[in-house]
């Protein structure tokens, strides 16, 4: 009570989390990956970050569209004596083919080598981080929204509503997830958005079960009864009083879920059901390189490592969160 600073819930969780060195390291790694994904246009590509052409200067043409650059070809542009440009450190866009330089070993020119079409592997990996992370987060986001709403309704009202939602969950859990996703992706037109949707629509039962179980416990709690006795509406009790107390297992599950979604996306891409070919996702890079495993080791090693490290980092963060949110460790 005599503590000087305010002790919100997240502050306590953060303090517990910081004690776990592996989890913190993994978290920093994920931040780095997120930064890589966000900064992809500045790291890899042939569009300069700043350029002077014909006496006019352009700031960040890789982010903004300039009307007089619309039909300008950056890839064949040779700067004149009065022109200048600051280019990204890896001056290769992820989908620029160069058949003469195909299957180059890692070296000064291409740090992680090139693939069978001469595309720079590092550039594709960096842009692939965007795709893979986005798929992971959006898919989990969709499943959390659906799962939380259905789980909360089932757990709060019980009875018939619970019965119906529980049957829906059981039906979903009866399908082998990967087969279901394959079926969905086969029916939907190929695009990364439909992959996110398919992943999200198959993952929610886990979330719903967790939330439902928490709500069963919480709805009998005194503070829930107090909220009802105060005259609060059901919606307010569900979302403001119970849900914040029910989310801990969901956050943990979601962290593992992002890792799982990235893995499944890689598997889908590897099977040829993933992101449509020119898109650089980690699984797609693996898929493209499977014919050259014998002699082009760099083609499978680096995307494989990227997947492995990211998934491991998400799992470590998930475990750290689980420990940090464990109510038995609090106080």
């Amino acid at each position, binding site marked *: 009570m005599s503590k000087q600073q*305010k002790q919100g819930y997240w502050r306590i969780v953060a303090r517990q989390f910081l004690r776990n060195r592996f989890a913190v390291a993994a978290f920093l790694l994920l931040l780095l990956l997120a930064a890589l994904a966000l900064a992809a246009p500045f790291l890899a590509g042939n569009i300069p970050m700043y350029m002077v052409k014909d006496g006019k200067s352009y700031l960040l043409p890789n982010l903004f569209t300039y009307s007089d650059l619309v039909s300008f070809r950056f890839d064949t542009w040779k700067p004149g004596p009065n022109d200048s440009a600051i280019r990204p450190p890896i001056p290769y866009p992820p989908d620029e083919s160069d058949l003469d330089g195909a299957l180059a070993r890692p070296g000064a020119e291409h740090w992680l080598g090139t693939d069978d079409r001469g595309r720079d592997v590092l550039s594709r990996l960096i842009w692939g981080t965007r795709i893979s992370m986005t798929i992971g987060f959006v898919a989990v986001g969709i499943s959390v929204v659906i799962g939380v709403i259905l789980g909360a309704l089932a757990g709060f009202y019980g009875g018939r509503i619970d019965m119906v939602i529980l049957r829906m969950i059981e039906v979903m859990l009866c399908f082998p997830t990967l087969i279901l996703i394959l079926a969905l992706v086969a029916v939907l037109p190929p695009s990364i958005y439909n992959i996110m949707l398919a992943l999200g629509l198959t993952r929610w039962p886990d979330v719903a079960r967790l939330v439902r179980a928490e709500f069963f416990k919480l709805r009998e709690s005194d503070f829930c009864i107090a909220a009802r006795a105060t*005259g609060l509406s059901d919606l307010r009790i569900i979302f403001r009083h119970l849900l914040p107390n029910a989310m801990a297992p969901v956050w943990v599950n979601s962290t593992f879920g992002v890792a799982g979604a990235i893995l499944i996306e890689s598997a889908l891409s590897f099977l040829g059901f993933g992101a449509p070919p020119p898109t650089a996702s980690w699984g797609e890079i693996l898929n493209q390189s499977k014919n050259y495993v014998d002699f082009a080791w760099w083609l499978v090693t680096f995307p494989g490592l990227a997947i492995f490290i990211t998934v491991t980092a998400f799992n470590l963060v998930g475990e750290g969160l689980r420990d940090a949110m464990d109510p038995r460790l609090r106080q």
Partner: protein
Amino acid sequence: MSDALLQVRDLTKRFPVRRGVFSQITGYVRAVDGISFDIPRGKTLALVGESGSGKTTAGRAILRLIEPTSGSVRFDGQEVTTLNKHDLRALRKRMQLIFQDPYGSLNPRMTVYNVLSEAMAIHGLARGRRRERVYELLDQVGLADTAADRYPHEFSGGQRQRIGIARALAVEPDILIADEPVSALDVSVQAQILNLLAQLQQDLGLTYLFIGHDLSVVRHISDEVAVMYLGKIVEMGPVDALFSAPVHPYTKALLSAVPVPDPDAHKHRILVQGDVPSPMNPPSGCRFHPRCPDATSACAITEPQLEGESHRAACLVHAPAPLRSAK
């Protein structure tokens, strides 16, 4: 008694017991079985009894936090049991609950300010001056202003109980149903909370339904006492009459169990045999008869009714003394 603020008549709550694959109803637990009482405005009625006697269920059924099976609850002349959702909400502003467990009764994720101001916001109270009103409430329950922006886990049990009381007061209720408000607290803190409740009653003219099992606490705070056993009221009366001249053998046994802080005091402990029978299958006749030291053969057959004037008991063997000598 038409001037009663709260009038409870034959309140009954039965919980179905379900068994088997298809959840057939195989029986009912009669948690509260036809209790009646009145509480005049500004007074305190204590509902006492051991665990499982239905006190808590009774309190919650009055607020319709649990839907009563049958019976009538009239609050300030208005029938509660038939109110629709909207009117029930308005009523809840006037009837509030205080909980036993100060740890479970506060949302761990909301600051004290949020808890108190939310209750006001729902009922449109103290618009535009919520923060001052929160400080006022905290002051009323003996907490500093700085408590407002803290979370429940930063407080001790007694302080949390004060917050719980402040939350109940936030909607400016007429009656507080206090469900064992001090039994989870240290003895020294118990006294503080009881004094606070007494002070609030005096200042705000509150009416209390005090649910408890600790008779020394009950004696301290209440005007009238009702003793419950297995869902029924077995004896009720003014606190002095009931404590000085208990009639029902169960009440006598309860009173004899109150510890006396004098090691030399000679006490005649009445020991009650056996356990509380299952409320699913209560004994025939008088529910207390299998454990009663004074039971006669009639007690197993006839169910006694509450009889007497202001001090009433439901016993076939003993009857309360006439009104004059009881006072």
